[in-house]
């Protein structure tokens, strides 16, 4: 004699026959709805986090200063306010760079970041060398690699001269992945 719960008989028997029970259907519906909901909620989450990964900003023409700030034949430190700036960036948005006025309107504007691992290179007028304080990278006055671990010459900014003022195309921290900013 079977002693099973009479309430259960119908559904159990139907399941044994390979049919979907109501309970089974509702469980699967619940899981399915949550998969859809999970996908929907993850779209904005991933989109929010990855926006900076996807959004690659172009450089912006940025004023460095009047030409007479940079005498011919010298290399001088200049600073500019980064084009992409938040009001609460503070001094972090004031970016330095090295301006070499070769002659007349011919310039070389070097990023401050060493091409090895991004530390700030320093200019030595007497030996006409840039030296890096972190791992000992050294560059010549035209930015070419002179010694140490850096894999390439200093990064340079594109520049233009308008109305006796020097502009550079800047706004993005240069790295090996994006050396031409």
């Amino acid at each position, binding site marked *: 004699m079977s002693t099973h719960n009479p309430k259960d008989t119908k559904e159990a028997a139907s399941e044994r026959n390979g049919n979907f029970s109501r309970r089974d259907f509702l469980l699967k519906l619940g899981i399915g709805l949550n998969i859809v909901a999970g996908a929907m909620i993850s779209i904005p989450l991933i989109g929010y986090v*990855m926006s*900076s*990964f*996807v*959004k*690659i*900003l172009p450089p912006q023409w940025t004023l460095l200063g009047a030409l007479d700030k940079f005498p011919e034949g010298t290399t001088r*430190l200049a*600073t500019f306010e*980064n084009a*992409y*700036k*938040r009001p*609460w*960036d*503070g*001094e*972090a*948005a*004031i*970016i*330095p760079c090295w301006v070499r006025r070769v002659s007349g309107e011919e310039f070389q504007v070097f990023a*401050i*970041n060493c091409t*090895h*691992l*991004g*530390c*700030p*290179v*320093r200019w*030595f007028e*007497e*030996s*006409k*060398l840039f*030296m*890096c*304080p*972190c*791992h*000992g990278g*050294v560059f*010549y006055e035209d930015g070419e690699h*002179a*010694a*140490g*671990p850096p*894999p390439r010459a200093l990064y340079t900014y594109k520049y233009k001269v308008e109305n006796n003022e020097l502009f550079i195309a800047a*706004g*993005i*921290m240069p*790295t*090996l*992945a*994006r050396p031409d900013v």
Partner: protein
Amino acid sequence: MNGTPKKSLTTSAFQAAQGVFLWLDDRLHISHLWEHTAGHPIPKSAASWFYVFGSATLLSLIIQIITGSLLAFAYVPSASEAYESLLYLTYEQDLGWFMRAMHYWGSNFMVGIMLLHMTQVYLFGAYKYPREITWITGCVLMLCTLGMAFTGQVLRWDEDAYWGLGIGAAIMGRVPFIGEGLVSLMLGGPIIASETLSRFFSLHVFIIPGTILALVAVHLRMVLTKGINEYPKPGHLVRRETYDKEYAAIIKKEGIPFAPHGIWKDLAAAAIVIGGILFCSAVFGPKGPTGPPYPADIDTLPRPDFFFMWIFAVAALMPEYMETFGLLVVPPVVILILFALPFFNNTGEKSWRRRPIAVLTVILIYLVMGILTYLGYTSPWSPQMDAWSGAPTPASFVKGRPPLELQGLIVMQNVQCRNCHAIDGAGGHRGPDLADVGARMTKDQLVRQVVQGGGNMPAYGKNLSPYEVEAVVSYMASLRPKGQPPARDSTVPGVPPTREAAATQKKHGEG
């Protein structure tokens, strides 16, 4: 008659307290929870001094959570104000400096004790069957802890933090194909600025600590389900088929409840850790902040915190051709090996006394890390930026020299040779010390080296006039220890020195 009510008052107070406790216990099941967690049985042999590091790491974590939460009372995670708020915390907020010091020293203790814990687990074979998951969650916890150390150093938002982020971005920039996006993702924008600080704040305060707490729960749960490793006996091998039964037998035969019978050494270690953090905080104080995070202020020597100094050294010492490989491929491979360890080394000997390779591995890793850290602090590869204007020239290297050589010394000083070359120890150590260069190189070799550079030295040909080269080389050729002859060109057939020549050399060599 007087004594009786007084006594019954104490008794009734005690009974009331007991009643409250029993009521709470009935509703919350505290004693049941306690018995099954803190009171879990451990092998008697595991109540050892070697087994205190896990609980000590957990204690450090608790201290970090408390001090960190308190620091957040005053800290402002805004690029324009974080540095100011740090100065306020350090110099104006009552005991702010001490809270910062405890958080800083707490982090040092946490990383240090965690490494000891990991070393002990490795040497005692505790990662083997059946505790693989405990090991893996522990590895993830280690990565999270190092993540906390790095993000914490960013929140200090001083010049080291700023340029540390620059180094991080430069490493990301070496990733092929997606490097550009990764840099932007890490910085939260095109440059190191407000959104960089905000996302590191979120990582340090919400995301990583949340992950750590969840993983600690799993890690501890594993201690309960699989038991604490018995103190390994040399020659007693782990076999998958028999280990569980053997462990159950050990627990049955000599198991003791961790609390209260096996806990006293952990308690003693806890007191030592708290005392150590308090002592270091009071004596050495907080770290930094160093200079303000103004990128335009480039007069800076960026250095990472203690835990990452060895990476800083590796980055300087790796040959250029393997650098990207070393920075991007080696770390994931090492982490993978750590994760996989319990699977390719799952059974067998547990005791370090019979695992010489394990012992040698540990010694090797500690030696390498120690030496790299030392090198990171001394960083002989970095030019000493102010040596040319600041390093003294010993009197014996100046006295009694002809004008040409003195002029050479002046040129040498002016064109920053000393930033990389010391004279008798004073100056940079990137290149060789020049105190005996005249005994090592001939005049011709010196001219070539100065003009053309090479061997990791820049060429000075364009920046020095022929007269200056002549002066510098004359000076360097004269630098050699007393009694040592000048270097000789090996392609020129040697002539045994005559007596007069030897005498001249001796006179010359007095420098």
